């Protein structure tokens, strides 16, 4: 049993959420490492080189990889595809999970790994089937969001999280509007549903699929996160690593200072866990049980 799954957290210039993502995994007992793309390519000294196949999971963290010039995620996607495309393909084939948070989601979409519908028909493998485009507000939005878990058990990052459960975690992006070309929209959405690829959708506190500010970017179908048909690749715009503990939440002090019982107060005192932890936990559970099989 692999109790200490090895997590590769990929960074290049401009990724900037790698440290808190690293902490989220290490807090849960994983062996996480922040790895520069150059280390995978081999463009560094011998002792700094790394091989993707030595890791159990790959994470592309949030940030502005290569400045997000051109289009969010486009440059890193091209660099990964160009330099370690084959390793990535082998990694996926092995059923090893890949997580893309915020900019990482943009990268996975640019790489064509998400939604990854290609194999079904139309010979669209490797083509970009969706986009994460400019927010409807036309500006950067840093705000808490509520996302409803919609997956029926396909996605390895949310197994164990009850369906219909509403999680709270913040988003912070300028280009997070999930978008599918009008001609394909209906067909693709249907397939996303059929394949159990929809993981998170933005909702209001009552669980309704509401518009701005609940849907912070104007995403199609309120989509906040999707996985590939196999359920091993998850991309999401909100930041689970920013919701690991309760004290990272925007409202923890409201609950802590309300007149609830002393025992409940202890629970929300701040060192309790937030919703983001569930995602890291789920994938680590998957990895730990997987080796057992």
């Amino acid at each position, binding site marked *: 049993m692999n109790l200490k799954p090895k997590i590769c957290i990929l960074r290049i*210039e401009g990724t900037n959420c790698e440290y808190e993502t690293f902490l989220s995994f290490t807090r849960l007992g994983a062996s996480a490492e922040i790895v*520069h793309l150059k280390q995978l390519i081999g463009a560094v000294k011998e002792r700094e080189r790394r091989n993707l196949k030595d890791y159990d999971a790959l994470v592309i963290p949030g940030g502005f990889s290569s400045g997000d010039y051109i289009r969010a995620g486009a440059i890193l996607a091209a660099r990964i595809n160009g330099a370690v495309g084959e390793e990535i393909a082998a990694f996926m084939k092995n059923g090893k999970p890949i997580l893309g948070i915020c900019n990482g989601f943009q990268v996975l979409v640019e790489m064509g790994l998400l939604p990854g519908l290609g194999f079904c028909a139309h010979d669209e493998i490797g083509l970009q089937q969706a986009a994460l485009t400019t927010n409807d507000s036309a500006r950067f939005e840093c705000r808490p969001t509520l996302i409803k878990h919609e997956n029926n058990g396909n996605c390895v990052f949310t197994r164990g999280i009850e369906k219909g459960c509403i999680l709270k975690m913040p988003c912070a992006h300028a280009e997070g509007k999930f978008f599918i070309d009008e001609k394909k929209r209906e067909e693709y959405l249907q397939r996303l549903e059929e394949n159990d690829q929809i993981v998170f959708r933005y909702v209001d506190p009552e669980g309704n699929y509401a518009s701005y500010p609940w849907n912070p970017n104007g995403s199609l179908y309120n989509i906040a996160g999707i996985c590939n048909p196999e359920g091993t690749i998850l991309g999401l715009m909100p930041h689970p690593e920013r919701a690991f503990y309760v004290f990272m939440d925007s409202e923890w002090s409201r609950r802590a200072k309300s007149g609830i019982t002393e025992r409940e107060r202890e629970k929300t005192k701040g060192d309790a866990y937030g919703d983001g932890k569930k995602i890291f936990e789920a994938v680590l559970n998957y990895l730990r049980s997987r080796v057992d099989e």
Partner: protein
Amino acid sequence: MKSSFGKAFLTKKRFEVGIRDANDEELTRISESMGLSLNLEEMCRLKRYFAAKNREPTDVELQSIAQAWSEHCCYKSSKNVLQKFIFGIEAPQNMLVIKEDAGVLEFDKDHAYVFAFESHNHPSAIEPYGGAATGIGGIVRDVICMGAQPIALIDPLFFGPLDYGYDQLPAEVKHPRFLFNGVVAGISDYGNRIGIPTCAGMVYFDEGYVGNCVVNVGCVGIMKKADLSRSMAKHGEVLVLVGGKTGRDGIHGVTFASVELTGEEEFRSAVQLGDPITKEPLMHAILEANGKRLISGMKDFGGGGLSCAVNEMCHAGGCGAEIHLERVKLKEEGLSAWEIWVSESQERFLIAVEPDNVYELLAVFEKWDVDAVAIGQTKPFFREESFTKEKKYSPVSQITIFYDNEKIFELETDFLVSCPVYVRPMEVRREEKEKFVAIEEPVDYNETLKRLLSAPNIASRESVIRQYDHEVRASTVIKPLQGPIGKETHGDATVIKPLEDSYKGLAITSDVNPSFCRINPFWGAASAIDEVCRNLTAVGATPHAFADCLNFGNPEKPDRMGDFYECCRGLGYVASSLGVPFVSGNVSFYNESAALKESIPPTPTILGIGLCEDVRECVTVDVKEAGNPLYMIGETKAELGGSEYCKLWHVEGGIVPRTDPAVLSRSMQSLREAMKMSVIASCHDVSEGGLAVAVCEMLLGGDIGASINIADVNPELRSDYKLFSESNSRWVVEVCRGEAAGRFEELMNTRGVCISNIGETLEEKRIGIQDKNKELVNISLEEVREAWLGTFG
């Protein structure tokens, strides 16, 4: 720069400027045509110096001296005032204050926090997007070069009114709306990209900023004490330039900041271009190299570029240096030697490294794809001393520069740093412009309150705050917006939890009220300290250190200098009484525009840092529950000068709020004690808009109503004065109901802190305010929210 000079440099490395035989008129002309911004007196001093040396200066030498002697670099107008009032407040937490680019203070046994605060006014007024962005770049470098990881950015901004009439605007002045949008976008794009949360700041509007906006920027960092790096070089080290390439951007940035703004496009070259995607890996590389103990000393390139960095590092370490300028990597061909030497191109550092470590240091930078080039070495120089029989040599700190083996510069750092210090003539305004003009009591309080809530200096800043990533690094535990989703209100201070395994926090806030300072600079500045302390205390923190960014007009004008003197006196008075030190800051003079012929209001912006023993105990602004009593802490006086209420009626003058450090200190201590007893559910300081606005902001954040009665608040005052006076040292608190309220009252009474019960929170989403039996305000919370949210959308 006149082009005739530029061409000459291209063909020749060494270019001498004849000043030894120049008359006064010619000296002035040389200063002007070379863009030196040195006055005649200073030019004459140079003339004497080089006459004694028996040679003419080179262009590189003159440019270098001009950088070192600029107001921006050497504080020649302000130094004596700063020394009198601002420097030297002793405190046990001080580790390294004032001396270097950022102040260093004790955080806990093993860690220190670092912070710096600067203005970027002139560049932002010319090119708001780039100016604001590079402002962040510069301040982040100041923190990194101490060896610290940046963890927070703070951006106080000051503009003219957004609805300022285009017909009133002089041709060369840019519209406040353009500047505001550009600056916010610049901060958002740069700050978000480098992955440091922009988590505090302010946006202030006043007609006085039409001709010259004020853009201040602060940065806080955290480090292990053992990682502290000094900005000095020792003998026998290699000087390595790391980071971006050197170009023509940012030439004469400091000398341009040391004259009045003419608004002319020719100064655009003085604005540097930022590159967050060079900065981000550069930051990692430096921190990695420093962690590996490869760096002996480092300094970022701020004003004056390479010239100031080499000079200051060598001077501090008492060594000389030999520089080979041709090794500097350039963005473009054809830069002349002096341009390379003074360029303020962004994202560069100078690192002093022991020869044995050079190879490993370069490897770290190579890994991060960041340029690193050894450009020279430090070495001792000796001067023969002839006044004794025996030959004696004393070491001098001398910098020599070669360009393609041709010596183009040879000066002692002692001379470079011996900038003149001026005691400028000043007119001190002790009497405030406070003819008190009576205001008629409003008939419709509902309307008055709504107008106040929508005033530009009070209305919701959510649309700005949301454009800044204030949560990256996942350590922002008390956020700038507080309350349930969709109902948030402004927080008083942001709290960062900098360490993974400690609950200790840093509270961060910045503030100043320029309207107070305009009427009475002494009490206006004192109020800024009071407000910063109030903000920090409101979240439960203890004020620990201040940084000051002093933005003023032309110091050569006696009334401006007088305002500066009085503001410093006010800051020093309160801070020293509280025993809280100023550890870093800068002075920005010449904030006036030639076109409008007016100075900005005196703007001594204060950045305050407080310590929270346990972030889990922090208190926020949003009201938590219906049925809790509300109290006001502090005394309300008829201090309406500069208040937002007066601005509604276009009343200028009046008495600005006073502050008594003893009362402030006692109130802060008692309030923190009450928070420790867990009886405080929410807390907000009373500032712009007075008591009424403070209560509304708390209720908006909780989406809860209240019934208020102000009968107990200074009964001698008229109702509108009670509601809208901006007296200092006040807070509104929501206290947990039941016996907690009794314990709170008892504590405050024993501590001798004035409190008034002003009502309680209600289930019904309405705000009712009465003075005894007289109903003043009765409106729904939604109406209040609409007014507050409407201004900036």
